[in-house]
């Protein structure tokens, strides 16, 4: 079949013998070229470990800058350490895979309280992501050396590194996304007439996509994108004449790639009796500035470009532009061009999702009052594999010229451009976009500090009993994590029947109440606030003055034992 993209065929078109550039190492050194995949995994782990160590020694809370990170740790922990332990603690707002992956590590108190549990999970994911990137590049350019270069570049951006050592969903998502891209590319690259071999590759892609859809909502575009790619490749590029082959692949692989979404909808239905609860619940994010970008693709694009510039530096973006052109030029033949275009589109899919979401008005990335700070700027780390891929393709086109000096210059230029960011930003929490993102809202930071103070006070005041959290969910999670108290002693919105009873009759279970007196406007959109707001307004005095009789039991009122202006801690007057 003339149109099959077998490696031998591509070799004639693209591959160049670059063995003459191999480096000869003296005896006693480990040759990374001999064990490239192991080297990549080890290099990723070591890099992340070093960065974790630096950040941790600089500030033990380094992994917990994001409010979301704290919530992920707490949610994972509450699955077994909660007043009502169980899978229901996974909730319906955040997708569950990250919490499930964190589960074995949050059992350890030290790993849980420091957030290192997340560093371990994210580092593992990062290693696999990097491996997938290596394999994609190696397959595309028939060169392990270029694969190694791509992997090295992946470890050179501080924002990417930070997001891959924190307990956030970005690292697991990147892993599943890159694994799915790898298998998709493997499928069309070694397109096989044997349908079973096609199936074996695509099913892995579909399962990775399914996992991605259960990790971040950005992943929900992937099943559509991938199935469209499969259809285009099979029907148009490969001109499959047997309809049943296409039908079988599309049916089964398609269904499997949508399985994650279906599972999530079913989960929402069985736990909240509303299949779209995750989208409609008031606890879902609100976007006060979204109107700014809505239906304005140019504004949205310019913001994304600005953040990308801040995160990667202008040299990388210029190189990427050249890289895209060179990649498409290298594959300009009619047989290869559609695949090249598909590769680029697939690699850009998560960022395309962000772009579409901004234009559609359900996402916002915007500059905050702080200099160089971008709210949600961290999402631009999803662009890293794409930028690396096109940067490497620029090196590839120069390698094809067979000029040793030019190649060395190109490699040096690419590495230098990528190192630019790390040299300038240097893990500085103000300069690194992903770290600064966590500090983007001053008010939020202040509230977080108040939460930490409250949790410290709670730690000292607590002598036993249940603690009722009348606070916004994320701040509540921060108090839970920072107080070092067993999570089973807390009652919050995830506590099922205990919460249902306590929100109206706090006296029954609440020996302590942590109450957010001055909720921010963002807090007011939170479901928890809506449930407890009555205690801030009409019934606040009841808590302090009124004895309540329920059944035959007389419950005493509370008294204030701590007040920092944001939070008060109430303690039951007597038992």
């Amino acid at each position, binding site marked *: 079949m003339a149109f099959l993209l077998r490696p031998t065929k591509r070799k004639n078109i693209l591959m160049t013998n670059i063995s003459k550039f191999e480096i000869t190492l003296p005896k006693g050194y480990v040759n990374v070229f001999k064990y490239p995949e192991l080297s990549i995994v080890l290099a990723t782990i070591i890099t992340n470990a070093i960065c974790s160590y630096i950040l941790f020694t600089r500030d033990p809370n380094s992994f917990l800058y994001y409010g979301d990170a704290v919530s992920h740790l707490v949610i994972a922990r509450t699955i077994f350490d909660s007043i009502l332990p*169980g*899978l229901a603690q996974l909730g319906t707002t955040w997708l569950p895979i990250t919490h499930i992956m964190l589960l074995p590590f949050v059992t350890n108190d030290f790993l849980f309280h420091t957030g290192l549990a997340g560093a371990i999970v994210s580092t593992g994911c990062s290693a696999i992501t990097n491996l997938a990137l290596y394999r994609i590049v190696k397959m595309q350019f028939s060169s392990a050396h270029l694969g190694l270069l791509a992997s090295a570049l992946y470890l050179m951006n501080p924002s990417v590194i930070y997001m891959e050592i924190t307990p956030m969903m970005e690292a697991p998502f990147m892993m599943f996304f890159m694994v799915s891209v790898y298998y998709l590319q493997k499928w069309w690259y070694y397109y096989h007439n044997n*349908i079973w071999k096609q199936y074996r590759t695509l099913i892995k892609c579909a399962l990775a996509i399914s996992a991605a859809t259960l990790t971040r909502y950005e992943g929900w575009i992937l099943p559509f994108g991938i199935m469209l790619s499969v259809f285009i490749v099979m029907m148009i590029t490969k001109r499959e004449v047997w309809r*049943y*082959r296409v039908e079988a692949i599309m*049916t089964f692989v398609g269904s499997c790639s949508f399985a994650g979404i279906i599972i999530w909808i079913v989960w929402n239905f*069985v736990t909240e009796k509303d299949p779209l609860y995750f989208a409609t619940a008031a606890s879902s994010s609100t976007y006060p500035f979204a109107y700014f970008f809505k239906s304005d693709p140019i504004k949205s694009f310019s913001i994304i470009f600005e953040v990308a510039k801040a995160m990667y530096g202008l040299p990388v973006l210029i190189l990427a532009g050249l890289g895209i052109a060179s990649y498409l030029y290298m594959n300009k033949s009619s047989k290869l061009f559609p695949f090249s275009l598909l590769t680029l589109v697939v690699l850009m899919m998560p960022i395309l999702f962000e772009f579409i979401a901004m234009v559609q008005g359900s996402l916002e990335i915007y500059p905050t009052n702080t200099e160089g700070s971008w709210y949600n700027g961290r999402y631009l780390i999803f662009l890293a594999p794409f930028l690396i891929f096109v940067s490497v393709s620029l090196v590839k086109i120069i390698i094809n010229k067979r000029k040793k000096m030019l190649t060395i210059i190109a490699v040096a230029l690419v590495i230098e451009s990528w190192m630019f960011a790390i040299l300038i930003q240097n893990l500085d929490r103000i300069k690194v976009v992903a770290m600064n993102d966590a500090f983007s809202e001053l008010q939020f930071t202040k509230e977080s500090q108040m939460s930490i103070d409250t949790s410290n006070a709670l730690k000292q005041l607590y002598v036993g009993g249940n603690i009722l959290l009348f606070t916004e969910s994320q701040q509540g999670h921060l108090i839970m994590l920072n107080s070092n108290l067993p999570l089973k002693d807390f009652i919050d919105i995830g506590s099922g029947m205990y919460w249902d009873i306590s929100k109206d009759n706090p006296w029954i279970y609440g020996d302590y109440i942590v109450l957010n007196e001055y909720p921010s406007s963002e807090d007011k959109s939170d479901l928890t606030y809506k449930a407890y707001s009555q205690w801030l307004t009409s019934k606040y005095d009841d808590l302090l003055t009124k004895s309540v009789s329920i059944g035959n039991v007389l419950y005493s009122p509370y008294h204030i034992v701590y007040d920092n202006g944001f939070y008060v801690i109430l303690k039951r007057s007597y038992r």
Partner: protein
Amino acid sequence: MHRRVEILSMNLASMIILIFAAFTTAIFLLLDFLLMYLSAIIFMQNPRLEDVSNDEKELVPDFKLPIISILLPVYREEITLPYLIESIANSDYPKDKLDIRILVEHDDHPTIKTIMSLPYKAGQTDDSGIKYNLFGLPKTIRVWRGIDIQIDYIYLNPPGARTKPNSLNKGLSNARGSIVTIYDAEDRPEPDQLRKVAVYMLKHPEVACAQARLSCYNSDQSLLTKLFSIEYIEHFLILLPALYSLKKVVLLGGTSNFIRIEVIRNLKGWKTDNVTEDADLGVRLARLGYNVVPINSTTWEEATPKLYPWIRQRTRWNKGFLYTWSKHFKNPMRLIHDIGFSSTLFLFYYLIAPLTYFISIIGWILFIAYWINFVGILSTEPLAGWIQDAYTANSLVFYASILSFIFGIVYDPFVAAEALFKQGDSYSLKKVKYVFLMPFYLYLQILPSILAIIELFIKPKHWRKTYHGFSVKTNEEEEHPYDKYI
């Protein structure tokens, strides 16, 4: 507090049953999943469906080929029998090396009538192709390609003993071939099957038995036949070759198994008290250390397209499996000694499957009833109330039910898809869209499983006849001869 008191006061026995049911379900399904998927994976790494190339087949001259005794046990198969005879006659095997024996009950007049009509169907114009015995019944008939077929009549008393193994033993006593095989009336073996197996067994004297693949030729007739054929592809393309690769006990199908005559005589034929004599034979062969291989040749057969005959068929199979289990697991240590631990484990699980279906459906009912009630679609009280109490009292029950449900939903479509893509032809790929119905097909087994468990105690040796010929087109105005059984 009230709630807790209520929970504590619930019937302890029912709670224990619920916990047991949900857990057993989960464990069985987990084991099923692991076994099937591991076998699938192993099969993918090491495909071991024995085969003979065309060149190898042609290299062996006709005179070196062994005589094959083909036993055709039939009862009320007047519709399907001619097709079987025609397909055997179309075989490329030399006719003088065929010892074809129709095993028919002496009073099965419709079938005997059909047998007598075969020479005419084969193109003869007079009765010179039929030789009669002393009772005026046909003794031999001459059909297509001038092949002579022997008719063996079964006289057994009482009529309840009219079972396939009884017929087979009768046929075995008269067989003159060195290899014996069985075809059911609804079978259509591939034309080169006999030669392929004969050459393979000539080349491999250590092999005692070869099992050909079974597939359904009427797979598009109804949804049931589609699912039936997917099940067969899973079984013969994934499970058996995987077991063979692992050198584990290879379970035999009811037909198209080729056994050396000295082996089957050494085993004293088929067990007449077992309604799945094939399963029993497979275990006995394994226990005595005989080699059984799956071979890459297909016999096409009819899948029952309607629910009632399907239930009858599955009831017999399930009863037979349980019976075989009860016989061979009387002394499990001995069985482990004979076939090894992993084979014993697999066999235990496979033969006990009817019980698994029964148990797992309880888990499913628990789970579905709980959620239906929870979501509020339908009030399933009082069942849901008890279940909720059990779940609240012990969250392990809840998780076991979830496990059971998820495995039930997930594993079978995956294994089925694996098999269908492995086969990769239009026949199988067209069925991929139905794999998501396989869990429901699996749970359709519940009724035959219950019937089988009941029958096992009431009439363990009763043979529920599976009626065939539903895929054969009859005149629309004419009543189908088997309609009265449905």
